[in-house]
């Protein structure tokens, strides 16, 4: 069932055509990738004024290329495609991403695209949190050419991103992590098919003395209107020798940076408490990976 009635459904063959259609139809048009988020909005009548879909599957953009500089992921790569990349599965530095990719059911893994998971700017999705911890930028194409935007600058509000009206995502770039890095992601959910109540990811690089040289701590799942990094937690972690007491302190530190939402999944107080717990768990898991466990 779809409550949204469409006037037209386009399958353009090039980026130029996509931009043209976006220009022509303005607010009436919506980009369609896998459709797994768009369908939910259409079924709940949450697409007021939209009556044109621009399905971008014919653009290709589905390749995932690993090079010396890092990983280039096409916006139309499916989550299942990303999960099957051996470097992501094997490199501890990208562990947060393989953790996050274990969450959605197979049917969603086969349908949802990486670009759609990011462009939706939904705070309850998992990949944005993992990508923020690992460090990523998005690539776009629009009427004034192409841009690269740091993922941190991409999310601007609840379901809002920094794409211009006539601009779309073409891919995501991850830079190759420093040697001695590891990352992990954890999610709290009500059941196997649900979105996150809270999720957290930690990426860290440790030097030979066992001190944390660099750290990135990210949270999502309604700890704010957008997924975010916790500067306070990162500051506390950086430069420290890893001890058994440290993860709990880092978990507490995220409180300075979050302002959780309340909704049908959880109260703001519960999210707040869980944000610390999940950050601590993600950090412990990253440390375990660093020291050789998986």
């Amino acid at each position, binding site marked *: 069932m*779809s409550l*949204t009635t469409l*006037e037209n459904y386009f399958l353009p063959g090039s980026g130029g055509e996509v931009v043209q259609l976006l220009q022509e139809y303005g607010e009436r048009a919506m980009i*369609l990738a896998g459709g797994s988020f768009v*369908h939910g909005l259409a079924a709940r009548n949450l697409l007021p004024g939209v009556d044109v879909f621009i*399905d971008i599957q014919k653009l290709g953009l589905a390749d995932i290329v690993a090079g010396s500089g890092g990983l280039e992921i096409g916006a139309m790569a499916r989550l*299942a495609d990303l999960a099957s990349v051996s470097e992501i599965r094997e490199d501890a530095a990208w562990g947060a991403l393989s953790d996050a990719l274990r969450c959605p059911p*197979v049917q*969603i893994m*086969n349908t949802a695209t990486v670009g759609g998971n990011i462009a939706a700017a939904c705070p309850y999705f998992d990949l944005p949190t993992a990508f923020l911890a690992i460090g990523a930028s998005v690539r776009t194409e629009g009427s004034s050419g192409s841009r690269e935007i740091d993922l941190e600058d991409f999310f601007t509000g609840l379901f809002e991103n920094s794409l211009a009206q006539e601009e779309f995502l073409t891919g995501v770039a991850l830079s190759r992590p420093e040697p001695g890095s590891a990352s992990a992601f954890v999610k709290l959910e009500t059941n196997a098919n649900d979105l996150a109540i809270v999720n957290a990811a930690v990426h860290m690089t440790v030097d030979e003395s066992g001190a944390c040289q660099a750290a990135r701590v990210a949270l999502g799942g309604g700890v704010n209107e957008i997924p975010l990094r916790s500067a306070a937690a990162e500051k506390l972690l950086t430069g420290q020798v890893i001890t058994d007491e440290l993860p709990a302190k880092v978990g507490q530190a995220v409180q300075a940076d979050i302002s959780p939402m309340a909704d049908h999944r959880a109260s703001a107080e519960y999210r707040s408490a869980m944000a610390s717990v999940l950050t601590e768990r993600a950090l412990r898991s990253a440390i375990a990976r660093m020291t050789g466990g998986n």
Partner: protein
Amino acid sequence: MKQLISIEINGEVHELAVAPQDSLLHVLREELGLIGTKKGCDTGGCGCCTVQIDGRAVYSCMTYAMSVQGKPVVTIEGITENGQLDPLQQAFIDAGAVQCGYCTCGTIMAARELLATVPDPDESQIRHAIAGNLCRCTGYQKIVDAIKLAAANSA
């Protein structure tokens, strides 16, 4: 405005006029009478509408019919060959994995992708593969048994 498309379902190409917002599930059930694919939640939450597109299990309720042009679709009706049940269908009968049966077709279609890629799955791989398929009757154990049995019978 309806648009004329052609889609391949169970090896047969159909020419159809569809509204741009029509789901593949709607077209299968309402236009083609292929009612083995069930409609449960219609929003990606239950799995009983699962079909295979390009060999991959997807929810047909959230797949736009317009988007499957040029991609082979297989439904539960398409897995029986020359009157011979698919090993999964037979195993679901033999293991007693069907109660009301509403979830069965979708679960078989999800399990089919698993067995095509992992011929000898362990229990956790099986449970992961059907995590997107809800069953309100069986408690899942017999479904898991059936998938193991199908794997063993196909070896």
